[in-house]
């Protein structure tokens, strides 16, 4: 399988604090890769390096390379707008804009001017169909997105990404604000989406990683302790610390 994202000797510092230590991993195309580990282990920080969202934090310093499609996205001249169109992000809390459902989906294409007015309807329909919301919402596209349930809001946030035509989806604990049933449905959606997208998910929930992902990385104190196929991580971890974490001895 082709590699979608590769990190080489990645180090990240917040001021004097080293949040990521020498990370090397390869994410396969059209697969789901989960990053697990206790709070503060750096998994969200790692996720946010892939679309350079850490740039928003003052005093952050990154060393090493992250290669996406043959290009080092940490290089000086990297166009963040192009990068972020290619690498979309779903956040922990569902965060639709306080606009209508339709306006949420058309937000990016309108600004990027990538779609003619005539195509707007089709884009809204396709995006909502991709996240399995169309049948429920097709009659209330003008409704304020904040009136939806949290699960629907999170689906809408995923739908909002799709018109930008990303190749990689970063999901930062996308289900932590949802109940178990909604979580299951979002996981179902992720399996559908992986046909077309490479998905990287950060999760607190080990069962979720075990259920949904193809590969899993276990992180601890800024280090990537172990990175392997999900099956082998959960049944036959090679590192004692991974074993302790997945058996619930700490975390």
């Amino acid at each position, binding site marked *: 399988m082709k590699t979608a994202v590769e990190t080489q000797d990645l180090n990240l510092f917040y001021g004097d604090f080293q949040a990521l230590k020498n990370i090397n991993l390869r994410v396969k195309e059209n697969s789901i890769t989960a990053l697990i580990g206790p709070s503060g282990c750096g998994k969200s920080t790692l996720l946010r390096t892939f679309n350079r969202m850490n740039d928003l934090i*003052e005093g952050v310093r990154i060393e090493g390379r992250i290669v996406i499609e043959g290009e080092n996205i940490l290089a000086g001249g990297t166009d963040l707008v192009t990068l972020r169109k290619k690498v*979309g*992000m779903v*956040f922990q809390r569902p*965060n639709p*804009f306080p606009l209508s459902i339709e306006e949420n989906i058309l*937000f*990016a294409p309108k600004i990027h001017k990538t779609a003619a007015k005539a195509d707007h309807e089709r884009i809204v329909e396709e995006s909502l169909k991709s996240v399995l919301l169309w049948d429920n919402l097709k009659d209330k596209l003008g409704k304020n997105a904040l009136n939806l349930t949290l699960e629907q809001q999170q689906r809408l*946030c995923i739908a909002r990404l799709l018109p930008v035509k990303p190749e990689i989806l970063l999901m930062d604990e996308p289900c932590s604000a949802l109940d178990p049933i909604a979580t299951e449905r979002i996981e179902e959606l992720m399996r559908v989406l992986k046909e077309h997208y490479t998905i990287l998910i950060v999760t607190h929930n080990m069962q979720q990683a075990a259920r949904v992902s193809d590969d899993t990385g276990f992180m601890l104190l800024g280090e990537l302790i172990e990175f392997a196929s999900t099956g082998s991580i959960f049944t036959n971890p090679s590192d004692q610390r991974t074993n302790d974490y997945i058996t619930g001895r700490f975390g």
Partner: protein
Amino acid sequence: MKHNPYRTEKIAFSLLFLATIVVLLPVILIIGIIVQKGWPAISWEFLTAMPEKGMREGGIFPAIVGTLFLVLGTLTFALPLGVMSAIFLVEYAKDNVLTRLVKLAIINLAGVPSVVYGLFGLGIFVMFLKFGASILAGSLTLAIMVLPIIITTTREALESVPQSFREVSLSLGVSKWQTIRYSVLPHALPGILTGIILAVSRAAGETAPILFTVAAFYLPKLPDSIFDQVMALPYHLYVISTQVPNVDPKVRYGTALVLLLIVLSMNFVAIVLRSKFRKKKKW
């Protein structure tokens, strides 16, 4: 006497309640007296005619027009400058010594007495830049005075827009300026509008800053250009109250009433806007 908690409770309540009522009193008295004594003076003629007989009769039309011109001129300068610098401070400026200095300067600017603005305007705009006493000089002086109001309210409005809006927008490959333009400013607009209205009502009501920079004692005509002097309501009120003998008190109170109505109605609009905004906000 024995200590009685019920009695002290009663005394405390009465004192606090009384203090609150006393706060109401001046507002009611000011508005009551001015409306009562000024209302008979209000007529179509009073609002639309030139003053006559040394301002003892006729209307206050040029003063109303002058005040409107000054407000417009003030906004022309203060609005773009204030809003743009607030956007820079909130969205772009890094937290360093210079930024902190600028923020401190803005706070201090708000604390400068208005007569100092008047003298500053006289020195800079009227004399040094040779605008003379004019709408231009007066508007610039008032603009500097209301800048802190506009900057502060705009900053608050921008800061009240959740950080997640910016993050989402940036993560969708939207540039920083587009993010500000499309996912921050629209949500901050009502707050900014409130600031603008407060600035307008301040500019309309102040006397000291226009005293040396624009206000005419008696000029019964409308201005031809921004280099003309105008009459303005607050200064006109001062003039007919202290400088002109034998003015019918009705005229004075009528003038005060017009000024009060203009300023209060603007404040009222600001309050309504703000409360509407708060109700609509769901994040």
